[in-house]
């Protein structure tokens, strides 16, 4: 997150070791447990990439010329000096656990580690075939001189942005669930699709170099097409075979695994930001500091959500969508072309998810598992708001986003995910129909 608060920055520094590990996903125990006879394997490509950042200012600056040493069991494996980007890359002989430390004698004058206890990261796990990122934060964190209330307001603003993006994604998921009953675990990959497609369209190196606004619009159109293709190629034929919803749920998990890893092969495993709008000076709106791109993301989400709501309420197709959601058989018997309505739901779902992916890419960065990371939050938004109700999904996304970002003022940031998942569970137990759902929908 670009407008990450000092507190969450700290959390990222602290749990830096854990973050990149998570990228490896489930392959971890497997690859680590394999006994490979050494020698006939391809040369190892494992490195430890240490990033040294000066977090005194509003924008992080790289720290140059600091020596980073990698050791294993007391033996030095290698060392490197951080370059102009604050990056020190140390090749390591293979997967395993290493200790990484910075040499304080090489620190720039007057600059120390933010947390002196972090001079050595004793337990950095490197997995096969992947660079491992660690972060060293330098400098006293900026004291913004804001009161507690103002900081909560700022957190709430960033929560509003996350919540709105989640709401946009959740509306799509909700439309599909409402019309077909499918709980689509591959929904996250629709977001990733949008983010990645826009990256390839907009990148000047390795992409087409189209300006990001146009690339984003194209990605949304392609996302709509992707949704339509999935409906036509996968879900409609399966419904035709009378495959039940729980089997379809498992199919969607398989599809998610397939798409996500396929995207990783193409896109690679490191996060990449879009080139445009990467660095910006914040706007000061009253007590709230907000990056222009984040403010614009909020506006786009609001406009899109209002438009979707109006379409659902005022157009024939929207009415048909709601009718099918309410009762598919009855709608069919009253002359609504249900297959066409479901196709419309999938097209909207693909487009909305792609838009959410692009906005996440702009406000954070593009990553092969960005959608997966948001999937449970999207589910939570949909369920808290009311399963199958697109308006509920909007409300749910906003409520969860604001409540939990603001709560990080009081609660450690690494509990945030646990908290919204907890909210999801509690809502399911106490009011399974959600905030806006209708009681009888729940069986």
């Amino acid at each position, binding site marked *: 997150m670009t407008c990450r608060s000092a507190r969450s920055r700290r*959390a990222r520094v602290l*749990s830096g*070791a*854990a973050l990149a590990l*998570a990228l*490896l*996903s*489930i*392959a*971890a*125990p*497997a*690859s*680590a*447990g*394999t*006994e490979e006879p050494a020698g*006939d*394997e*391809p040369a190892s*490509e494992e490195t430890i990439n240490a990033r040294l950042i000066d977090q005194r200012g509003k924008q992080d600056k790289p720290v140059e010329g600091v020596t980073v040493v990698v050791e294993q069991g007391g033996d030095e494996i290698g060392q490197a000096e951080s370059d102009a980007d604050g990056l020190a890359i140390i090749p390591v002989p293979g997967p395993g656990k290493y200790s990484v430390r910075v040499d304080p004698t090489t620190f720039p004058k007057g600059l120390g580690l933010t947390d002196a206890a972090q001079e050595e990261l004793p337990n950095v796990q490197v997995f*096969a*075939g*992947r660079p491992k990122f660690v972060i060293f934060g330098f400098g006293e964190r900026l004291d913004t001189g804001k009161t507690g209330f103002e900081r909560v307001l700022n957190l709430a603003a960033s929560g509003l942005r996350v919540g709105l993006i989640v709401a946009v994604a959740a509306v799509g998921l909700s439309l599909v669930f409402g019309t077909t*009953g499918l*709980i689509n675990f591959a929904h996250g990959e629709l977001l990733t699709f949008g983010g990645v497609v826009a990256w390839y369209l907009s990148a000047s190196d390795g992409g087409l170099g189209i300006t990001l606004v146009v690339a984003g619009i194209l990605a949304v159109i392609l996302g709509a097409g992707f949704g339509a293709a999935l409906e036509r190629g996968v879900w409609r034929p399966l419904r035709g075979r009378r*495959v*039940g*919803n*729980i*089997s379809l*749920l*498992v*199919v969607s*998990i*398989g599809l998610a*695994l*397939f*798409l*996500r*890893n*396929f995207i*990783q*092969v193409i896109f690679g*495993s490191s996060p990449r930001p879009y080139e445009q709008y990467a660095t910006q000076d914040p706007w000061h709106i009253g007590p709230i500091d907000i990056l222009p791109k984040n403010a614009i993301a909020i506006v786009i989400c609001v406009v899109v959500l209002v438009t979707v709501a109006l379409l659902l309420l005022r157009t024939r197709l929207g009415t048909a969508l709601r009718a099918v959601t309410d009762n598919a058989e009855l709608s069919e018997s009253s002359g609504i072309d249900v297959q066409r309505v479901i196709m419309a739901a999938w097209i909207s779902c693909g487009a909305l998810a792609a838009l959410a992916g692009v906005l996440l890419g702009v406000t954070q960065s593009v990553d092969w598992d960005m959608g997966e990371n948001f999937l*449970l939050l999207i*589910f*939570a938004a949909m369920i808290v708001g009311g399963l199958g109700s697109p308006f509920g999904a909007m409300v749910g996304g906003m409520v969860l986003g604001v409540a939990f970002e603001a709560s990080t003022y009081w609660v450690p940031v*690494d*509990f945030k*995910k*646990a908290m919204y*998942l907890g909210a*999801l*569970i509690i809502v*399911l*137990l106490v009011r*399974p129909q959600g905030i806006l759902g209708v009681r009888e929908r*729940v*069986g």
Partner: protein
Amino acid sequence: MDFGKIFSDGVREALGVNAAAYALAAIGLNVQYGLTGLLNFGQVGFLLVGAYGTAITVKETGAPLWAGFLVGILAAIGLAAVLGIPTLRLRADYLAIVTIASAEILRVLAGSRHLEGFTGGPFGIRGWAGSFYDLNPFSPGRYGAGKVSFDHNTLWVMTVAWTLVILASVLVWLLKRSPYGRVLRSIREDEDAARSLGKNAYVIKIQSLAVGGVIGALGGMVIAVNFQFTNDDFWLSPFTFLMYTVLIIGGVGSVIGPVLGAMLFWFVYQSLDSLLRQAIHEGVFGDVLTSTDAGPLRLAFVGLTLMLLMIYRPQGIFGNRQEALIDDR
């Protein structure tokens, strides 16, 4: 291309500790999903509490390892109660979401820096399984035939793990043919009918969740003992999906299915990795793929397999199609 190596890599993994741990996890799922129809998508949470229950007990209290295992098992029963009592009244697909969310909550808490004194946070807990290896009856050395060999410690873990797999399979076999097993299946087929015959479906579902959870927790302990280490990254949500793949390959509801499913899964999974790495190394794919792509490619293959199996052969190899289609009732 060295097909001998590809084959022996596959065989090594099919017999290895991972396959045994996956088999245990899938046997547990089979009790819950296969026999009772509970859509538990948080099985990895049971593995997690098994591993952490053991590790924390030994590390914090200095208790012997067997006491740790006992705590791990109790923790799994506790998790089944905490999860099951409020959620088993929910619809099947809701249960899926609650369980996956709960497993993820446990993982987030396990990896949190704020609980580091207790769970080790992201750095995990190590150095608590030594007494397991002290019991190793095998003298140091490598054991095996040809290219498939294991060191004495791995062989020791394998021996215990596969013994657990056999015991769990026998338990499921006995369970399945007992009157209790028939009640489980009747709940899967028609819960209302079972209730109308006076069966307390709610309590029985919690019991099923607990039995499957304990078997899963044993799998978690096997993995943690094998690495003598556990941290939050071992227990990511997609792990549960691999367990489902294993179960569906072998056959939902069948006793031997999860075991052979796990062996076949690891054989294919590892051979594929070996094949891809060799092919990439020899430049078969030119510049299109690099050796880092082998991992995601084989997972993509797993995803495709899961999809196609679920569509075309939901009963897997050994299952019964009628039993395999658990769906909205």
